[in-house]
């Protein structure tokens, strides 16, 4: 197995970008990643691309449509996806393309164009439910989050105030992120007073819908130093899918994230994640999800994540900074691109290139994670400098 490094990253601003198509967004991110590494398409041997549901922009075989913009022209170009977990998964996809020895370099591109879905992209999510059992109910994705959040709060006796702290932290962190869509200085009170969408989920508990793209350049150990002096190594990867029958499991704990994390930790030789992971980007489409995922990632015990948050451990100057980028809550949530944004943030943090966002503690090892589907997917990468 070849060791694989990330040598460069690129990102677009996340926002409603009505003027640009998905392929233009892909181009902007891919172009930035290539330029940062001093590379051109001639240096790229293959392209791994990800975008999740085609229903957002109504383009069938969307991967084919995006291929030119992602630099896939006349190259081995492959689109993978695992729902919301796609952004981190496409990094894993790029990893195995290079680790296999088949390619020396791989351009990883993730993009999402949600704003073209009318009246709201939420409607496209009806089609992710089981066509016989669930779809006739006219489901909304918020419902299942509300159920899960409520279950998590009930089992561990967590107050909404504790959860709202995550939204406050991430939106504040995003103030320093030039790519961010809704950076904001808010208080716990603002979150609790915001509109109830599906109790207990309030508007400020949720990330927005966004358009955007992110890209990475991967290189094998043989060529990585040709493109950078500071490669960041992908030392652990893990992914896992649980059953589609989400009603058959207890939603209070994401066991699929635990399995994915265990796979990545084993590969990276990590036995005590709480001590050995120095900075993390757990997936935070909802504020409670960051806490849920910290527990699944075994960065703390079950039900303990709210306490760490209250103590300030997860702040940028804390001992275990989480979502220093501003996360999905602050930067935005163009589904596939948001996961790749998290990998890019850890890349910049480990290289100490995050500027105003740089965490205080010294970091050797970091982690990015994404979640997806019907409370099903965990995707994890462990990065080291």
């Amino acid at each position, binding site marked *: 197995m070849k060791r694989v490094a990330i040598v460069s990253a690129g990102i677009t601003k996340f926002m409603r970008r009505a003027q640009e198509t998905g392929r233009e967004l892909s181009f902007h991110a891919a172009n930035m990643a290539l330029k940062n590494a001093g590379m051109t398409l001639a240096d790229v041997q293959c392209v791994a691309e990800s975008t999740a549901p085609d229903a957002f922009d109504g383009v069938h075989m969307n991967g084919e449509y995006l291929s030119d913009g992602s630099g896939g022209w006349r190259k081995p170009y492959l689109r993978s996806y695992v729902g919301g977990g796609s952004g981190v998964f496409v990094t894993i996809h790029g990893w195995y393309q290079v680790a296999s020895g088949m390619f020396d370099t791989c351009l990883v591109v993730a993009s999402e164009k949600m704003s073209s879905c009318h009246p709201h992209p939420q409607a496209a999510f009806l089609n992710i439910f089981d066509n016989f059992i669930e779809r006739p109910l006219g489901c909304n994705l918020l419902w299942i989050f509300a159920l899960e959040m409520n279950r998590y709060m009930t089992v561990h006796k967590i107050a909404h105030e504790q959860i709202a702290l995550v939204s406050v932290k991430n939106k504040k962190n995003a103030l320093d992120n030039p790519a961010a869509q809704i950076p904001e200085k808010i208080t716990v009170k603002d979150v609790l007073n915001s509109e109830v969408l599906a109790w207990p989920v309030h508007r400020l508990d949720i990330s927005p819908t966004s358009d955007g793209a992110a890209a990475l350049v991967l290189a094998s150990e043989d060529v990585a130093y040709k493109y950078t002096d500071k490669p960041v190594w992908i030392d652990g990867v893990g992914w896992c899918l649980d*059953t589609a029958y989400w009603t058959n499991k207890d939603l209070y704990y994401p066991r699929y994230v635990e399995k994915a994390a265990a796979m990545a930790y084993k590969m990276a030789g990590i036995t005590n994640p709480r001590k050995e992971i120095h900075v993390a980007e757990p997936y935070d489409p909802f504020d409670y999800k960051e806490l849920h995922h910290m527990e699944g990632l075994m960065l703390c015990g079950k039900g303990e994540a709210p306490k760490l948050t209250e103590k300030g451990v997860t702040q940028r100057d804390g001992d275990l900074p989480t979502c220093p980028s501003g996360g999905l809550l602050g930067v935005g949530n163009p589904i596939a691109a948001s996961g790749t944004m998290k990998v890019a943030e850890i890349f910049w943090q480990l290289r100490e290139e995050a500027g105003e966002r740089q965490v205080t503690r010294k970091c050797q090892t970091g982690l990015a994670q994404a979640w997806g589907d019907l409370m099903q997917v965990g995707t994890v990468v462990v990065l080291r400098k």
Partner: protein
Amino acid sequence: MAKSKVAVIGYGVSSYGSLSPEVSYKEMMYEACSKAYQMAGIDPRQDVDSFVTASEDFNEGTSIFDEYIPDQMGGMLRPNQTIAGDGIQAVAAGVMQILTGRFKIVAVEAHSKASNITDHIGLLHFATDPAFTRPLRAHPYFLAGLEMRCFLSASRNTEQHAARVAVKNKNNAMLNPLGVHSAKIALEDVLASEPTFSPLKKLEQSKPADGGFCVVLANEKMAKKLSDKPVWITGIGWCSDSYQPERREMSWPEYARLAAEMAFRQAGIPKQKNAFRIAEIDDTFSYKELQHLEAMGLARKGESGRLLEQGAFDIDGELAVNPSGGSLGCGHLLDAGGLFRLVEVLRQLRGEAAGCQVKDARKGMAMSWRGIPTATAAVAVLEV
């Protein structure tokens, strides 16, 4: 890359037909996978390290279709993923996972439930460029008509040559249990069939079919341990040319040349002539078989039609091309088409192809194209 040491140790095909009201897509997946696991002698819950499917949301009528992989494939709480591509591209993902050394056995699945799609052409409209092509409101197959015209005029091949592909494949399919669109027809029948997208004719277009396919891949050690008849994947390649039809060379499928070049290089095949005994290649439209044969170097530029006429591509010819009957004879399977072709090559190399069996088949290749409006192909080289 050196010759890869990945083998196929089992395959399964579900119930198959031009319609399949008796099964859901979930049952189809389950049946194909169960059969493949049984042949490989494995339990997916313990032995399979990773699961891959090839699927497209709009074909399934389900957004983020990967949700419905684990339960059907026996992959719950294990690594699963979707490739939004053709079956052979999904096999490529499985091969690369095994080559990392961290996965021993990978299962790959693809299926077509085309009969669930009420409006194929309406769906294909959504695959065309929303800004440049879709506003033309043209039936997307017009691209096939244009491409066929370009190809025939640029090469020395004729409309009769293209029609002969349909004759060969539909007749070959008479011998295949999957040959649901087989027919005993003659050249005159094809030439006399209704022109659809001139010069393309009705009998030169493949019609949809339903079916599920699964293959089990294993590394060298596991393959030798588990299988008496492993079939080695010695090369695999894939490529996409521009998605914009106006930016492609219509007479020449460069995507097929590049995909084949990648696979042949890995397999150590410097000269394609006489390298294979059998090739299952894309024949979504009759002329596509000729175009792909030439692009992949299996026939010289402009000579495929003449060779076909001479019988070189018959079941008992120098190179049996689509002895299964291909898409024209067995139906078009959306993105499961690649896995269908791969399984047909496996059956040949394992000596299980019954009526279509090609004698002394030891090396074969499968090639797929993702169909209109794409310019994406994948190629696999298989050996025993």
